[in-house]
């Protein structure tokens, strides 16, 4: 199982941030690090079809359609999450979307992650307004994980978390990613300890395999 990206170019308003990128991601925890402004976030957004791009993407040697990506590739963005009134309604929101209708909400997994990521001081019916930035970030991560996508993308998933919780998150991700392709962008040194493969994005737009 691998994700192959060929001649991939993307950018805003006609200016390319990444140009003619060819890169392969295997099953497991792929960590992307690199300079700020090198296009890591733009890369994840384009992979998830939030932006238009040029190039081809293959998964298990099959060219990906937009519908396939919407259904099977999920992205956790860095900040500014969409929320509903309560924690539980926020976490359940994606299951109302057209491309997630075949999925069922895994209550047991939700409880486990809620406790593992140290959110159990809250009731699931708590208003999201009471959450701090770091707590909301963990809710956003749980929300993406519960969808159990074939490809998981996450942009700085632990940027607002302390080392203890970060470690729990990456330990969990290491296991979770054994059965799927995960591409995680992170500057957190803890992430390196748990990653299977490291990629480096430089400002010039090319990729080094570390």
């Amino acid at each position, binding site marked *: 199982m691998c994700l192959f990206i060929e001649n991939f170019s993307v950018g805003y308003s006609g200016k390319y941030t990444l140009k003619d990128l060819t890169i392969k991601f295997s099953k497991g925890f792929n960590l992307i690090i690199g300079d700020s402004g090198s296009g890591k976030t733009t890369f994840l957004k384009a992979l998830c079809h939030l932006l238009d791009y040029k190039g081809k993407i293959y998964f298990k040697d099959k060219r990906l359609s937009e519908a396939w990506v919407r259904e099977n590739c*999920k*992205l956790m963005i860095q900040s500014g999450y969409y929320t509903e009134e309560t924690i539980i309604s926020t976490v359940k929101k994606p299951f109302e979307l057209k491309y997630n209708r075949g999925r069922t909400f895994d209550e047991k997994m939700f409880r486990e992650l809620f406790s593992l990521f140290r959110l159990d001081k809250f009731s699931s019916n708590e208003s999201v307004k009471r959450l701090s930035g770091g707590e909301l970030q963990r809710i956003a991560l749980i929300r993406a994980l519960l969808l159990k996508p074939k490809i998981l993308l996450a942009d700085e998933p632990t940027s607002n978390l302390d080392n203890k919780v970060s470690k729990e998150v990456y330990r969990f991700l290491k296991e979770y990613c054994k059965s799927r392709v995960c591409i995680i962008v992170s500057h957190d040194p803890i992430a390196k300890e748990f990653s299977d493969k490291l990629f480096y994005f430089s400002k010039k737009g090319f990729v080094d395999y570390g």
Partner: protein
Amino acid sequence: MAKPIGLNGLIISYLVLTVLFAVSYMEKLRIEKDIFVSYLRMSVQLFLAGFVLIYVFKIDNTIINVIIFLFMILFASRIVVDRSGVKIKNATLFIFLSIFISSVVVLVVLIFGIVHLHKLNARYFIPLAGMVIGNSMNSTAIGIERFFSKIKDNRSKIEDLMGLGATEEEAVSFVKGEALKAALLPTFASASGMGIVFLPGMMTGQILSGVDPTQAVYYQIVIVVAIGATVCLSNYIMIKILSSRLKFYLTYSGI
């Protein structure tokens, strides 16, 4: 028949404009030039419209009527783009299509179903189309501006939903409602004030020109409902088209 106003009446009316110039001068608003240009434009445009309408009513050719109708929508679409300040590709085309589809649907019902005409009689078609298109123009300008400013304010939330699998339409659904409401509210507010707060222009015009007030009221109700339907439909179609191109705007329009 209405009592004719005559040239003297028109000159006195223009003299009333000195109030505007006086306020602008005393309060140092420096908008004297704008006032002059606006009222000059209004006068020239109306004289021209009156002049053209004399011939259009006399010829009363369906093809010419339809061409005038298309020109009116094209002009309205250009004004919406200019007024809303939205800089997106093909904006004029999308607004044109939205106003065109909605006004055709409503005008067909109005002209053939309610007024019971057998052809597009210029004397009815042009003024009715003008009212419907004019109101759509005002509301789509609000609708498109609000839609894009809300997308700008909520970009990360929209991206968050798309990242979780939302279609472009699902991702903007919480923004769509607000833009639609903002576009429709002035039309409803104006409808609810009619008859008590003010007498609408068309009804006033008809009564002044000697039409039985009951008939004037009937016409006014029909046109207000038609305007409401067109305004609603044109904004709905426009936002539907724009929503389906969200990814393109996120990538290329600097939102």
